[in-house]
């Protein structure tokens, strides 16, 4: 049954239509015809009954006489005449004792014999003054009814068969027409899929199918126009994409590439080779891979300079931007290697310029420092004070040279993980005696967290800022050191309530060798700037003369 239903479900529209027609004919026409025939049969039977009853009623007196007078032969003639009524099979006239007076089948129901009343007989009482003196039994001739009804039945069946046949033919014809129309629609769609312009066949008749064909044709023509525009746009944007030097990737949430432009070929990759692979294959270092992966996981954005690795293993720099887009991510990589190089060149040039400037400062400082020595060199004999002066000059020169070296040759150290407290603790160990000696109130606001960066660089930054702060406060000053994590950034604040920086000096405090203090080399804040740049961070200063200064350092760590 289930298989049949499944087969029926998948049957052609012609078969379904034919079956529907046949079903409707069988369900409506045939039962109606049979009901009509049955009704006719009953009517015919009733007609025969009415005829014989009417005949008996009209000859009632004669029947009474025939029974009472036992006029058998005349009774037989009457009965025989009644039995000739179409549709009457057998007629038997009996007296009050059910003795046969006459029968249309006298050899079986002999006159005078007892007539056993059977269920197959209909009977009409013969009454004389309300007294039943006999009965007339009769049977309806089924063959007669059938003889009339059978041709009708045959005709009905023949017509039903004919209608069924016509129904099937109609179903087939209608389905052929539907298939033809749908075939035209399919042809139009196929032509459309092949890229051609669908051609509409003009047909004379108008119906839902031709309207559908017209609608499909119009829709496909419209779509063709839209697709042409889209194709143009696609070609345009594809060309645009491929002419971009910037790598554009579309990533899924796992970081797999499912679209990329031809810019990847500049890095030795083919578009086909990259599709389906993880984006990490392009990224040079574990940091970049981790950061991008994390952004993908959080469905967040990412912007940063990353190292790229081409197929030959060569590294370059790129500005990476990751943006969520619908259920995917757009990931662009703009090659900034040249920019980086230019930046370094500029920096180097700046350094050279700075060096020139610094050299002048250095020469000036060294000249100043060695001035007592030059003056004493002309004295033949040094006293104890002279020796002290010489010693002081030499210490001064040594200090200038050490500071310069620290500024000019930054420490190169690999990144490593360390705790925030460890950093502060290591720096405070150096300055703790000075803080105690000056009675400075040191306030620490250090969040406990892990850092991953160049620890020495951060130590130098904190050390120089703390040293400046200690020098800036007099008497019972106050210094606040704050180290905390804000998102991906580490924020270091060193605040003092010292004398502050005059407005006129504020732009110069970061210049090398600028110092308002006689004993300083003027390289402290320059070194801080240098190391903050090295860590790709930001340095800000807020200062008010007489109230103190606040240095804020933000680095990625």
């Amino acid at each position: 049954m289930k298989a049949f239903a499944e087969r029926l479900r998948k049957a052609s529209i012609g078969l379904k239509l034919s079956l529907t027609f046949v079903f409707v004919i069988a369900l409506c026409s045939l039962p109606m015809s049979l009901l009509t025939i049955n009704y006719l049969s009953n009517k015919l039977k009733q007609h025969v009954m009415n005829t014989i009853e009417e005949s008996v009623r009209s000859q009632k007196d004669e029947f009474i006489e025939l029974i009472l007078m036992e006029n058998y032969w005349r009774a037989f003639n009457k009965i025989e005449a009644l039995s000739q009524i179409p549709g009457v099979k057998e007629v038997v006239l009996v007296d009050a004792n059910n003795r046969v007076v006459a029968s249309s089948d006298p050899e079986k129901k002999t006159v005078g014999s007892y007539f056993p009343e059977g269920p197959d007989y209909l009977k009409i009482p013969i009454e004389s003054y309300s007294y039943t003196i006999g009965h007339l039994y009769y049977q309806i001739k089924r063959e007669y009814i059938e003889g009339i009804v059978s041709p009708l039945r045959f005709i009905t069946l023949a017509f039903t068969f004919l209608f069924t046949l016509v129904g099937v033919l109609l179903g087939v014809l209608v389905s052929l027409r539907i298939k033809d129309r749908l075939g035209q629609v399919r042809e139009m769609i196929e032509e459309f899929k092949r890229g051609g312009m669908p051609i509409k066949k003009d047909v004379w008749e108008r119906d839902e199918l031709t309207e559908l064909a017209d609608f499909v044709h119009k829709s496909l023509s419209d779509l063709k126009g839209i697709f042409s525009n889209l194709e143009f746009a696609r070609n345009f944007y594809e060309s645009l994409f491929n002419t971009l030097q910037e790598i554009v990737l579309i990533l899924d949430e796992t970081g797999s590439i499912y679209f990329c432009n031809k810019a990847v070929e500049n890095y030795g990759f083919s578009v086909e080779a990259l599709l389906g692979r993880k984006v990490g294959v392009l990224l040079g270092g574990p940091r970049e891979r981790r950061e991008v992966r994390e952004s993908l996981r959080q469905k967040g954005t990412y912007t940063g300079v990353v190292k790229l690795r081409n197929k030959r293993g060569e590294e370059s720099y790129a500005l990476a931007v990751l943006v969520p887009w619908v259920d995917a991510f757009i990931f662009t990589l703009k090659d900034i290697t040249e920019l980086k190089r230019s930046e370094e060149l500029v920096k180097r040039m700046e350094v050279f310029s700075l060096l020139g400037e610094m050299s002048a400062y250095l020469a000036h400082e060294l000249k100043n420092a060695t001035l007592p020595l030059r003056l004493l060199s002309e004295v033949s004999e040094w006293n104890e004070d002279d020796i002290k002066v010489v010693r002081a000059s030499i210490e001064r020169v040594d200090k200038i040279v050490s500071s310069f070296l620290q500024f000019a040759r930054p420490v190169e150290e690999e990144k490593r993980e360390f705790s925030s407290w460890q950093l502060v603790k290591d720096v405070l160990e150096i300055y703790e005696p000075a803080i105690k000696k000056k009675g400075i109130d040191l306030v620490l606001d250090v969040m406990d967290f892990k850092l991953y960066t160049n620890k020495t660089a951060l130590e130098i930054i904190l050390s120089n800022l703390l040293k400046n702060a200690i020098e800036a406060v007099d008497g019972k000053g106050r210094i606040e050191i704050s180290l905390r994590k804000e998102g991906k950034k580490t924020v270091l604040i060193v605040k003092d309530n010292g004398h502050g920086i005059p407005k006129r000096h504020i732009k110069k405090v970061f210049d090398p060798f600028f110092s308002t203090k006689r004993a300083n080399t003027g390289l402290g804040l320059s070194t801080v700037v240098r190391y903050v740049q090295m860590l790709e961070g930001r340095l800000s200063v807020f200062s008010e003369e007489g109230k103190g200064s606040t240095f804020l350092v933000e680095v990625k760590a």
Partner: protein
Amino acid sequence: MVVLFALLLSVLLAFGRDIKVGFTAVITREDVKTIKDFLDYLSKKTGFSFSPVFARSYDEMDFYLFNGKVDLAYICGAPYVEGHKKYGYYLVAVPLTSKGPYYYSYVITKKDRPYRSILDFEGKPYAFSDPKSNSGSVAPTYFLLKNGYFPTEFFKPLIYTYSHYESIMAVYKGFVEGASVDSIVYEHTSLVAPHITNKLKVIQKFGPFPATPIVASKRLDPNTVEVIKSALLVMHQDEEGRKILKNMGILGFTYLEPKHYETIAHMISYIKKIR
């Protein structure tokens, strides 16, 4: 002269009115055309005018003959015997068959029935024609009575059809098992409707008896009767007459003396005594 005048007057009187000729259904099928042809023929031959009167039984015909509604009648030997005695009927002519002016009472049944005698029909439905018919009632009753049976009790039931032809049909249709019929009617039926008699057989016959006569009421003038009688007796001599006679199932007419009917009178007398 007076006699001659009287004869002429009576004949003239006969010319002045219709002579009613009675036919009973007992021996005559209501073949109106044959009867009309017969009467037209007689009219042509005698110059009288004839008109038919039909009766359903011999009793009815007796009544008509007695009260003058019928002048001439074609009846059976038994009613003639009784009528002659009671009402003075006189015999005009007797039909002539190939067996002469005689006929028999046949006992007939269906060919497939086993009966061989009227005595085998005990307890069976059996048909007589008219209670006054010689062949259809008197003769077989006489035979049964002679054998110790009362027909009304012997047959179950005894059915009167009031027509020999109807009795033949009653047997043919199986309504009765057997019947006593006039041999002239039976033979005539075998000529005109052989498909009926082909299914039947004669198993016994009583007779011969003088044939069913044409009788005249005593009211009818004897001279007129003589004219009619003369015409009847020569009827077979012309072509037209023979044709009509053929349709009537007889060869012609003859005359028998009334004494020939004494046998029938005897049987009637016997039956009446037993009853």
